């Protein structure tokens, strides 16, 4: 297990816009968005770690030293066909969220909102970078890695975070869990990535059932509009 510090030199503007609650077509100050993204790049300390474990799809058991059974139909279906799972944790640390707090206190609400959105985009991008490494490493073993799935998605109980965080190695990055199962620093993500044999019928998975359109958080700021290529997860 080791810590990887991905290089993040730019953020995806479309993602920052989405997390800020802008529709793709909305005309909004490009300058404010660019400033927020630039500030974010300066404030983030992206880092991540992961562990890989054998997985039995039939019993939904992750074979860690203390085996863990996954509960929740969505995550179980998501991992159909997986023979291993990689459990990862990433964070961008607290510097950005502290600046967001300061901006709100300073009545710069818009800058705060945009910076927060940039922070979310940054942590997601950090997770993407970790997934890329996981994908490369697992391909050497003849495995293909899938998309990632986090506690709280679908019907995977957020309380599973209590088991998942230690398995990911996240505590080594200073990531902790509150009593209410929230990750600290706030801009942190833990996730499971399934590793599938390449000839397995079940991959690539149909992940449409996991898109925003099937999520019951109707008022989520970042809810994606339906598209044909709607592959959230």
């Amino acid at each position, binding site marked *: 297990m080791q810590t990887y510090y991905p290089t993040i030199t730019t953020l995806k503007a479309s993602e920052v816009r989405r997390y800020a609650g802008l529709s793709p077509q909305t005309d909004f100050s490009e300058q404010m968005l660019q400033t927020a993204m630039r500030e974010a790049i*300066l404030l983030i300390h992206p880092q991540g770690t992961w562990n890989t474990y054998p997985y039995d799809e039939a019993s939904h058991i992750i074979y860690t030293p203390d085996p863990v059974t996954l509960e929740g139909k969505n995550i179980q279906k998501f991992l159909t066909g997986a023979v291993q799972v990689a459990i990862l944790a990433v964070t961008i640390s607290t510097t950005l969220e502290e600046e967001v707090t300061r901006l709100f206190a300073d009545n710069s609400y818009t800058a705060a909102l945009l910076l927060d959105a940039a922070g979310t985009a940054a942590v997601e991008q950090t997770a993407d970078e970790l997934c890329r490494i996981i994908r490369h490493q697992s391909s050497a073993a003849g495995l293909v890695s899938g998309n990632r799935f986090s506690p709280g998605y679908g019907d995977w109980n957020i309380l599973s975070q209590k088991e998942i965080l230690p398995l990911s190695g996240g505590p080594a990055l200073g990531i902790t869990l509150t009593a209410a199962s*929230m990750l600290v620093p706030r801009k942190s993500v833990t996730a499971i990535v399934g590793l599938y044999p*390449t000839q397995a019928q079940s991959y690539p998975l149909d992940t449409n059932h996991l898109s925003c359109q099937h999520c019951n958080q109707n008022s989520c700021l970042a809810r994606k509009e339906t598209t044909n290529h709607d592959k959230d997860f």
Partner: protein
Amino acid sequence: MIKIFDGGLGTMLQAAGLPPGYCPELWTLENPEALAEIHRQYVLAGANIITTNTFGANRIKLSHYNLQDKVALLNASAVKTARSACGPNTQVAGSVGPTGKFIAPLGDQSFETTFDVYYEQAQCLDACGVDMIIIETIIDIQEMRAALLAAKAATTKPIICQFSFGADGRTVTGTDPVTAAITLSSLGAHVIGANCSLGPEQLLEVVSKIAQTTNLPVSIQPNAGMPRLENGRTIFPMTPEQMAEWAPKLVEAGAAYIGACCGSTPAHIKAVRDTLQNCGYLTNPPFRTQLTIPTALTSRTNTVYLGANFPTVVIGERINPTGRKALAADLRAKDFTSIKKEALAQIQAGAQILDVNMGVPGIDQADTMKQAVETLSMLVAAPLSIDTTDPSALEAGLRYYPGRALINSLTAEPKRLEQFLPLAKKYGAAIICLPVTGAGLPSTPAEKIEAVQTIIDAARQTGLNDADFVLDALVLTLAANPDAGKGILETLRLYREHFGFPATMGLSNVSYGLPRRELINASFCCMCLAAGLDAPILNPYDTSMQDALAASAVILGQDVGSKNYIQKQAPKEALPQTTTAPIQSDPLEAIRQTVINGEKESIIPLVKAALEAGYSPLEITDKALTAAMNEVGTAFGAGRCYLPQVMLAAETMRAAFVTIKETLPSHSVKSLGTVLLATVEGDIHDLGKNIVAALMENNGFYVIDLGKDVPPQTILKATTKYKPDIVGLCALMTTTLPALDETIAVLRAAKSTAQIIVGGAVLTPEYAQQAGADAYAADGIQAVNIAKALTAK
């Protein structure tokens, strides 16, 4: 002649009995005959070079098996076994594989530790008598640099450098084959190539790209196809015949060394060799045209070319503490924030290379330079120019930068040459040749040519070549040297004529002491670009310079179809509505529109003007400000505008209120009521609450914000103390709903008269009702509307 490498050892060792999870190098120490037999089979199959079973025989990998002290033993044994299996003409390549760790700043393992570990192994392999070193399956440019530098320090034997590229054409940490080839060929590799990860089909393009970038021989050792998992085992599907089909294509693409990696067997190697023999390539490969190598700098992920055949490259000069007290102070305090800001801003302003100068008296310049290049390598994709006169700072910059840097600069002074040239050679840097001799500044172009020639001659002696030189025209001030301008133009012309290497110079000096410096600089820049300037060092923020560069690119034919220029000239983001719409004669209407459009700056003079014109604060608030927020709220609810726009409107409102308060301090704002806000106990997210607070405050409420993770008793205490009209409670997740319930219960039990509104991603109207709240708000705007309705009663 094509050289045939052996195939993979891993699969063969497993077939010979290597137990899963057992250290391969230890197993072959214990079973040398099994290994010797595999080597012999490859020799019989036609391999010219066999690779030692030392892929994981470095201290770090061996520590997984607690064998870290057996480096010498395991390497020696493997080399001895390989030798014993050689034919009369077989060569032995000492295999050096990855440490398995990410190198700082991408990971926690330092460059120096990595270097030391590789040095240890390379020394062993050299001492044991390998014919060459092969550094293979490397996924990170910095790990390759450490390994290559270590191998060069340990041996004079040839060194082959092979990367592992992914399906996206880059290594895991982002380096593409062209960038890798440029970095490594200047760093001293003898052969550059790739192995593993991909099959021959996917690697064909990699071979092409490397072969078109360097004149060094190219090696390729593909996997036997893309692997799949079958019954718990990894299978590589390509048969020897299928693999051999690709061999001629790989040679045509430029490969001079061909082998194979995972999943291959002696049969694969035999098939490859036979195919190449049959088509004649084995002894007569297609002729590889000698390339003229252009001057190029690299970062981890990018290559930037310099020269007459390439677009103008801007070198940003702003990371330099000279004459900048604040920047110097930051560096003394080891605070790199302003350096990072300058880096990003310069890239945004069009710089493609960043000059890095850490010259602050009294600091450890070498350590600061190390941190600077590592920090910048994580922040920008632009290559760097190391700007220093201190050799230890130069070495630090060159050593720790994961790319090929430019040295700013080498003069013709003997001491500078003596100190800097060996570093340039060792680290494969390109050099800026500054025509300054010990005898002072040159006064004529001819003298500059002579000084440059001195530098180039000395550099060539050290082993640098044509692709390493950038010539500085040495700009002096026009105010002190009237002929400086013409002299530079002549120098640039002569540089082109005599040398043909890319030219650079620090532009800004020329206008020192003159008025409207930006005009002189921009005009001078245009003239120099035409005379042969390729990579000016300048302040990228200077807008006249930006314009001059953009126009020059069109004039010199570098901006195809004038696309960039036209785009740059397009009007900046759409001007705010009110400045293009007819000027509002009605001040209140103007204010209303400005709030709706979120124009924070414009609102202040408008409010002042309205107050001066005699409108009362109440009128302004009711008819313009409140009306505006109502309209924004309605638009938001209808999906016609979005949260950031609402926030901008709220900020504009606030600016209006503040202006009123400052202009009429005695005016008291009538509050619609007091709102107490909190995110409940155990909940640490407050974005939603902060948005609600902002909207409440700018819609006429007095807001008390208790923050996040607030216990029910604290909320009760504050409610008792402040007697708010509204208590707003936020909860983000299902796990904190119990705290919400408890807070409501506590308030009700204490008979608080405050009306309770709840909100947050996890709340629903149904939950709110059963929890005993007075209302549910789906978003900040709804919260404001509900609060207004509740307090109006």
